[in-house]
């Protein structure tokens, strides 16, 4: 099964850049969510609100996002490393 058998060098680079971007976006989403939760914990502390509830929710939610992003990243790099070498293709 070939990979990008057609298309010039620029085409391949563009596709590769888009693939890297999709992983970066996933981690950006995770960073955004984590900073949102951190902000809400800060707000709850400054208002003297129930801080433990906010911290508790964050401690559950952030690792769940991290796990999903990690699995996606593992697949991305795993598939790259698992490709055939050019001499194997011949």
């Amino acid at each position: 099964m070939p990979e990008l058998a057609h298309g010039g060098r620029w085409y391949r680079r563009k596709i590769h850049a888009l693939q890297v971007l999709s992983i970066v976006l996933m981690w950006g989403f995770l960073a955004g969510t984590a900073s949102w939760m951190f902000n809400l914990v800060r707000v709850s502390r400054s208002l003297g609100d129930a801080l433990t509830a906010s911290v508790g929710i964050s401690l559950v939610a952030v690792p769940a996002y991290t796990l999903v992003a990690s699995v996606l990243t593992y697949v991305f790099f795993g598939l790259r490393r698992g490709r055939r070498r050019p001499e194997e293709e011949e």
Partner: protein
Amino acid sequence: MPRFEPSSTQDEVLFRPIEQPASRNFQLAVVALGSIVLFAVFMYVRQLVRGLAVTGMMQPVTWGFYIISFVFFIGISHAGTLISAILRITQAEWRRPITRMAEVITAIVLAIGGLHPIIDMGRPDRLLNVFLSGRLQSPLLWDVASITAYFAGSTVYLFLPLIPDVALLRERNKKHRWLYDFLSWGWQGTERQWQVLHRAINIMMIVVVPIAVSVHTVISYIFAMTLQAGWHSTIFGPYFVVGAIFSGIAALFVAMIAFRSAFGLQAYLKPVHFQQLGKLLLAMSVLWTYFTFCEYLTGFYGSEPAEMKTLLYKTGGRYAPLFWTMVICNFVVPLALLSHRKLRTIPGILAASIAVLIGMWLERLIIVVPSLENPRMPFLTHLYFPSLTEISLFAGAAALFALGFIVFAKFFPIVSVWEIQEGRALALQETEERVSSYLPDEEVARA
């Protein structure tokens, strides 16, 4: 050498909808569904200009069709990832033609369901307040966190098993080549790549189960955490999860039957698949009835005045016709059509599934509105009637779901090609070995 290599020249029928020009029926469906969606967008813009006064909501009934649809659509999303994950975990071999459709339902419906609280806000700019100064101790914010986690998880869970099929499409197609190149992530089908993919799918199928269960539990908390009569219940979490799986299986059946007929998938979606999943729908119907009975019995036995007022309002008052229709749709019809093998035919299952979808939508209505129409405080009671805007937006959401599904089917196989081929090549031997491993050794039997 990889232990299995899918072929792009087999199972032609699964590639046909993608590669052949759009049929007249497909075009008509897209135009019809697109028109409904556009009308809903127009009605939403009108609501933005005129405010929530165009809806039927008014104090004390501040949640109506939008929140009912939100709970209903998020419930349907359980069809996908949860059912697919459970079937994969239990290694149910009949899952192979079903999982892809189930996973697609989740991704599309979650996106649509998630929009409803924003529509309900009236002013979408208020969403910014959730990010800037929301209260994480509010169940509404738990919803935001769990639904986004579920959406991320189920999108990844849909994408991973799609990679080998996208690579097959990359080999076959000149059309949309860049899309398939982008999404195949350099897939060549080497042994190492298969190992990575299987490991990731195995992790995700475990991870998505607790996330999916937590999502609908948390959705039930937006009701159960209040002291409102009819809502303040400890079994609301599991009751909502059971209802979600129940409606999800029904939606999956409707999708399976529609695509089976439209794409000629009779050889892939066989009566045996409907029989097996039909038993699960029947089991969920009985479980849902048990939970409903428990929920209402507890309220009735306690005889707390506010609780009794709401209960009688639902079962014998203004909502009685809807309540008893719900019972017929969710219990009587599935029991009649699914409990006997001879009646558990594809038309019978379709009728039961449509009844369940109607019944579960009514269940959401009966949970949300009657409790609000009977407040504990002596407010002037307002009777809720949905406006044209709310009905149009519900129709638009349903049309968007169908449109999303058929557009997906135009780009990707609706049945997982590699899983079918893997089943043919490997599953028979693997299943034999697995079953042998469950049983005592022959030497033990002889002794």
